[in-house]
């Protein structure tokens, strides 16, 4: 049982006699202090999965514990001596291999874990005795001083634990405790309490581009301005992590928000020359991020590629990995320069100021009308581009179709709050199935072309031993196979998308104004 106490702690003394018990003198095993640090990904993946990861440091030892929704311990890892604790933020490969890491992997993925709250905690204990002076229950009192995200003192947290075989006595004590004013059952974990004390709530980060709430009859111009503003929040919130290179998702999420913005600019709903002025700037921003992201994708896919080697072995690819990592470091430096440049600063301040000044346009229509019109048109363009594709079409036709699909997808997601979630979810799934096929096709082709470029670079640098080049050749062959496979799936995927049920759903999405 868990309680939080406000003012009631002074009245504790009277509680035990009320339950037919008395408190032992002193605080038993003595007071202890420890530091507690809670960790999560930037987008709160653990929290949203009902998991809590905590590092406790005290008495020269440190440990990591993962708990589930009901506070049950799922895995623990001792990090001793305390000096060996990972330097946060850290990705999972910075954690010792073991059950804890295995449980985290599917949830955390490629993201890094960072501290979301830190406290110094002082624990004292009171022991409740029966008439034989036997301990029947222990009351733990934890006082947390929050040091991050903001300095604060959390209300004391009480934990009542019955000694085995004395549940009835502990229940009486618990009832007497909750009868105290200021003591209420805790409705959350210690992390919740620490965050609440510093005025925050877990799980809230505008870290990813997503639908913003829109009223159907809102003027299109101001609705678009609010979408753009939310997207720019996402861009800005990810800049820090992308520059510090905490994990690859910061850059990815930043890019997605840029792409949504660029598609949004093409909708022609915001006034005057805004789109004309800012389209080149967002294009620049998008291009700035491309080299680093491409290399991220390569590096993330490398383990799978390595595993697929048949003639070569993992060690053969080490020089290639080294080359990729060096190239990535260079690309990342260029990215950092760009994100810290005056041009980016001007883009940010100028864009924000212009968005704030956007007013409804005369004859601009509602956002629902805009969404209907543009979704309908984007869908037609996808159908047109797709129907042109025959078995003998060059790859460029499929790349073209992929772009059209992306445009449609962004619109469906961007205006998501206007639509029935079930219909939208189904439509997105069908579109995604087609996109996955086209993505696989194009990515495999691009990566195959790139690996040729990498090989030439490595030869020029004399950093390419023969076994490495051979293994790279194997990867190129594997990519070619993947591309062929994706191509062979295309007809069925497109037919699914262009079929009546899927098109009926898109038609529904394109009629929000009349819904």
């Amino acid at each position, binding site marked *: 049982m868990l309680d939080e106490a406000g003012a009631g702690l002074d009245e504790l003394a009277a509680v035990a006699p009320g339950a037919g018990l008395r408190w032992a003198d002193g605080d038993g095993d003595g007071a202890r202090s420890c530091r507690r640090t809670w960790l999560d990904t930037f987008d709160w993946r653990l929290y949203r999965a009902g998991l809590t990861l905590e590092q406790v440091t005290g008495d020269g030892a440190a440990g990591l514990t993962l708990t589930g929704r009901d506070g049950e311990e799922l895995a623990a890892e001792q990090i001793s001596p305390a000096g060996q604790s990972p330097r946060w933020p850290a990705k999972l490969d910075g954690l010792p291999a073991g059950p804890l890491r295995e449980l985290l992997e599917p949830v955390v993925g490629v993201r890094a874990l960072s501290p979301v709250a830190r406290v110094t905690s002082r624990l004292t204990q009171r022991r409740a005795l029966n008439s*034989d*002076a*036997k*301990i029947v229950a222990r009351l733990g009192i934890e006082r947390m001083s929050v040091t991050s995200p903001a300095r604060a003192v959390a209300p004391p947290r009480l934990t009542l634990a019955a*000694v*085995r*075989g*004395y549940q009835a006595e502990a229940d009486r004590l618990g009832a007497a405790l909750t009868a105290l004013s200021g003591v209420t059952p805790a409705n959350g974990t210690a992390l919740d309490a620490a965050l609440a004390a510093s005025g925050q709530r877990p799980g809230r980060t505008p870290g990813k581009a997503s639908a913003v709430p829109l009223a159907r009859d809102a003027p299109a111009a101001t609705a678009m301005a609010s979408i753009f503003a939310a997207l720019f929040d996402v861009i800005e919130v990810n800049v820090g992590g992308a520059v510090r290179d905490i994990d690859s998702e910061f850059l990815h999420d930043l890019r997605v928000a840029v792409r949504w913005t660029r598609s949004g600019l093409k909708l022609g709903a915001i006034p005057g020359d805004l789109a004309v002025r800012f389209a080149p700037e967002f294009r620049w921003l998008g291009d700035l991020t491309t080299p680093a992201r491409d290399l991220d994708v390569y590096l993330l896919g490398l383990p799978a590629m390595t595993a697929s080697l048949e003639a070569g072995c993992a060690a053969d690819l080490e020089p290639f990995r080294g080359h990729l990592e060096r190239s990535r470091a260079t690309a990342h430096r260029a990215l950092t320069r760009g994100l810290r440049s005056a041009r980016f600063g001007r883009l940010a301040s100028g864009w924000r100021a212009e968005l704030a000044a956007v007013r409804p346009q005369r004859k601009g229509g509602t956002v629902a009308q805009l969404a209907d019109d543009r979704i309908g048109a984007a869908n037609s363009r996808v159908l047109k581009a797709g129907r042109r594709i025959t078995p003998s079409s060059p790859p460029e036709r499929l790349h073209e179709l992929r772009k059209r699909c992306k445009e449609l997808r962004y619109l469906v997601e961007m205006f998501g709050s206007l639509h029935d979630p079930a219909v939208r979810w189904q439509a997105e799934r069908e579109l995604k199935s087609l996109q996955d096929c086209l993505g696989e096709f194009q990515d495999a082709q691009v990566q195959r072309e790139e690996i040729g470029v990498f090989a030439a670079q490595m030869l020029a640098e004399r950093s390419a031993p023969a076994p490495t080049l051979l293994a790279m050749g194997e990867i190129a062959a594997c990519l070619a196979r993947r591309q062929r496979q994706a191509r062979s799936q295309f007809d069925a995927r497109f037919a699914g998308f262009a079929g009546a049920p899927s098109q009926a759903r898109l038609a529904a999405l394109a009629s929000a104004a009349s819904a």
Partner: protein
Amino acid sequence: MKILATYNIKGGVGKTAAAVNLGYLAAADGYRVLLWDLDPQGAASYLFRIKPRVKGGGKAIIRGSKAIDGAIKGTDYDNLDLLPADFTYRNLDLLLGEAKRPTRRLATLLGPLKSEYDVVFLDCPPSISLLSESVLHAADLLLVPLIPTTLSVRTLDQLTDFVTGFNGHRPQVLAFFSMMDRRKRLHLQVASDLPAARSDVAVSAIPALSVIEQMSVQRAPIGAFAPRSVGARCYRELWLEARRRAALKPPA
């Protein structure tokens, strides 16, 4: 899980004092320990301030492990639980007699506790009975307190002969001198000669000490109220010897 039993057909020789103090020390080592007070007198229960009462009495206990689970009480010490005595344990012999395979009954009852405890101490009442036979069959190590006289050695030999006759599982025997009076020449002599001559007699001995008598006033193991006393040190040495003899793996 290892089962250690303090055993002697005589009363007042230090069985309970040993079970309580060694149980405390085992738990302090980090082992998960259960002490079962099998003596209807309930001396061990008293020392832990736990009422000698079990729901359903000995009958329920002998019948099944569910009653055992419900009757276990936590002591004031980490890792140390107690299965209390009950007045009805007087009839434990009769109850065992009605059970199937009475001499194996205790071992069967303790089986399900394997996952919960690393060490079980059985504190036996003084007697030769079906119960004590069942204890002998269940135990991995018998801790036999001896008052250092030549006579006590005879009882040890009888016990050793008896368990050697067991088929299958046989407990090891580790006798130790208890309530040794350093002022008595006979005590000193027996206590120094015997461990050298016999491997089933512990090197460590427990002298007669007032601090040990104090336990029943303090109602606590010595380690809890006089951790630096001679008595506490002697029990610690005895525990180290018993732990080695029982081949206990280091606690998890």
